[in-house]
């Protein structure tokens, strides 16, 4: 009786939280928090995080409540290659330049010297702040999260429901966009890790349920939420030279869609288990539409689509084998592979990598050992995740590296009346292997046309004219692409967590 009362309370808590369900890159990095599943949570999750990774595993997770705290640090460095002696620099005074046929450039770069050192105010010109190359990198981060998990069972343990979440302390979530080509010169003029950074502050909830069909087979389903926000902003600009007098309204609408996931767990023999899982793509999309009305009566509309926390289709397969299985001792080995369809990647500005530098689909592999002896449980995992990003020899500067990961967890169980109190800790380290790329030099042409759009853009076309005269120094390549002529990246991430679980 007492047990069913506790289960009902836990169920109510799970139901209230399910409306916020959302999966994220953060959960993927953290793995099985609150258990010994480590980096094979889809295969061997023993805590509430099974609700996200493989809901079928909830059948074997005891009813209970888990609370914990995790500290995560990332140090991802990007070093830019020197630009030489200025032969690729964009000169000043291009504001009024045009192609030989009088048409305007697609894009007007800032002078390289102004970007690097800024510009002082003069009677005829306003001051411009300096944006030195890579001075605004975002690879160094520290974050703390509160972890919560709930699991409950019903109908003689046949139906299981679970919820897990990681809530960042401080910034609840971060959505930070940046361009991966020469357009970034206007903002940070730096390169940023593509799959970390603000993605480590994603909203991270998972809700799932499992049904145990037989003693050896369970099936689970869950869902996250894909968020689509639309923003329409009518703006009135009385004087284009005084934008501080902008008159602006905002009309924001947020829609939520389902991002389902699910899995199975099958134990052909007492000592052997096979698992499988799938996760549908997830994202947070923001559509912006700004309709400008100028003082002259002219109306213009600008649209911008932003995408954050994009995750691909993922399919996982795993297996574990109990080598020692006694009353008070257990030793098992586990291995798993996770396919991710990164070739469909859409970046923060809603753009896909060009075919010449299309991303790879990846298979991430992990192997590990699980052990338990009386009150102690432990797990160790080793993971290798190849980067989906090809060498960035062209216009784009997606920064990502192959990654090795090592995780270790330790748990101690204390009987407490009718329940068990579990104290656990988890330590993970990820090493991003050094990667260097030197970009290809694009050919330039006398007519100023760009015939290699996948390569770095010549921002000062060779046919440039200022007035009726040919612009000096236009021959060859001039670019402010922050990744030109090359860059290297490497780094690490680590997290340490502690948790307390009360289970039946």
């Amino acid at each position, binding site marked *: 009786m007492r047990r069913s009362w506790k289960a009902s309370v836990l169920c109510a808590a799970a139901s209230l939280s399910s409306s916020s369900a959302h999966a994220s890159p953060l959960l993927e990095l953290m793995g099985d928090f609150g258990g010994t599943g480590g980096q094979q949570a889809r295969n061997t999750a023993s805590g509430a995080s099974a609700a996200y990774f493989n809901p079928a595993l909830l059948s074997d997770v005891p009813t209970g409540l888990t609370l914990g705290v995790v500290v995560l640090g990332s140090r991802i460095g990007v070093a*830019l290659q020197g630009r030489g002696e200025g032969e690729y620099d964009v000169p000043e005074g291009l504001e009024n330049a045009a192609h030989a046929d009088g048409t305007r450039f697609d894009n007007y770069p800032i002078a390289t010297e102004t970007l690097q050192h800024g510009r002082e105010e003069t009677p005829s010109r306003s001051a411009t702040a300096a944006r030195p190359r890579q001075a605004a990198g975002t690879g160094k981060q520290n974050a703390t999260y509160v972890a919560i998990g709930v699991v409950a069972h019903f109908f003689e343990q046949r139906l299981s429901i679970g919820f897990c979440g990681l809530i960042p302390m401080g910034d609840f979530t971060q959505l930070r966009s940046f361009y991966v080509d020469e357009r970034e010169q206007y903002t940070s003029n730096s390169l940023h890790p593509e799959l970390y950074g603000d993605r480590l502050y994603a909203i991270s909830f998972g809700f799932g349920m499992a049904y145990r069909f037989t003693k050896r087979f369970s099936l689970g389903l869950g869902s996250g939420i894909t968020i689509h926000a639309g923003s329409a902003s009518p703006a009135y600009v009385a004087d284009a030279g005084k934008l501080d007098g902008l008159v602006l309204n905002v009309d924001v609408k947020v829609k939520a869609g389902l991002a389902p996931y699910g899995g199975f767990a099958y134990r052909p023999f007492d000592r052997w288990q096979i698992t499988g899982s799938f996760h549908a793509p997830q994202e947070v999309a923001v559509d912006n539409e700004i309709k400008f009305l100028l003082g002259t009566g002219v109306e213009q509309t600008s649209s911008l689509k932003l995408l954050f926390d994009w995750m691909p289709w993922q399919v996982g397969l795993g297996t574990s084998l109990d080598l020692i299985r006694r009353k008070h001792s257990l030793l098992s080995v586990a291995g798993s592979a996770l396919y991710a369809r990164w070739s469909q990647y859409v970046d923060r500005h809603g753009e896909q990598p060009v075919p010449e530098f*299309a991303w790879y689909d990846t298979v991430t592999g992990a192997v590990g050992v699980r052990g338990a002896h009386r009150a102690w449980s432990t797990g160790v995992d080793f993971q290798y995740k190849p980067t989906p990003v*090809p060498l960035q020899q062209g216009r784009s500067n997606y920064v990502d590296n192959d990654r090795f990961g090592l995780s270790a967890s330790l748990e101690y169980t204390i009987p407490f009346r009718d329940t068990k109190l579990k104290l656990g800790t988890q330590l993970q380290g990820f090493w991003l292997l050094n990667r260097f790329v030197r970009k290809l030099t694009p050919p330039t042409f006398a007519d100023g046309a760009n015939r290699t759009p996948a390569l770095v853009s010549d921002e000062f076309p060779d046919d440039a004219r200022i007035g009726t005269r040919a612009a000096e120094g236009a021959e060859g390549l001039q670019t402010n692409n922050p990744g030109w002529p090359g860059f290297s990246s490497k*780094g690490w991430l680590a997290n340490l967590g502690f948790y307390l679980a009360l289970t039946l």
Partner: protein
Amino acid sequence: MTRHLSIATLVLLGAGCRFGGPEGSPTELIEIDAGVPVEERDAASGTEEDDPLPDPPDPVDAQPEPVDAALPVPSDAASCTPPSGLECDPVSGEGCLPLMQCLVDPASSTPAAYCVFSGLLLDVSCVQDELSTNCPPQYTCVQGECRKYCYCDADCDDGAACADPSAEGGSDAFKLCERVLP
């Protein structure tokens, strides 16, 4: 049981790989206006309109060049052979354990090198001490810049000269690469 284990092993062997990826050559020229002849001006790329660019050097083993390096100095064509008796070779980067790299010993009056821990270059400038450096392997930190070690010009990238005497140590066995203007 054994058969099932074999299947599981095969699944694991396939893990940790990637497939798909880039399609087509990024250097292939697209047609803008077939009727208008074009004159290519970039002598550095040296390609015809219909020819793709030559393959770049393999970037896997390449290293970042020094940022804003100095003008070139003619090479004295020094020997490419490392001094004998080194604990590790700072030019080839060999002789150290994983996650460590080789630096010239600044305290020794004879050619000497030792291993330090590899750090992480978070900014444009670098930091180096007796225990660690955040420059890439085969590089050293000189006045806030990562500079590549060399014995002779062949150790430098892109035709750079091996001419700058190392500021480290009392020996002239080690030099630093300098940048050559294109």
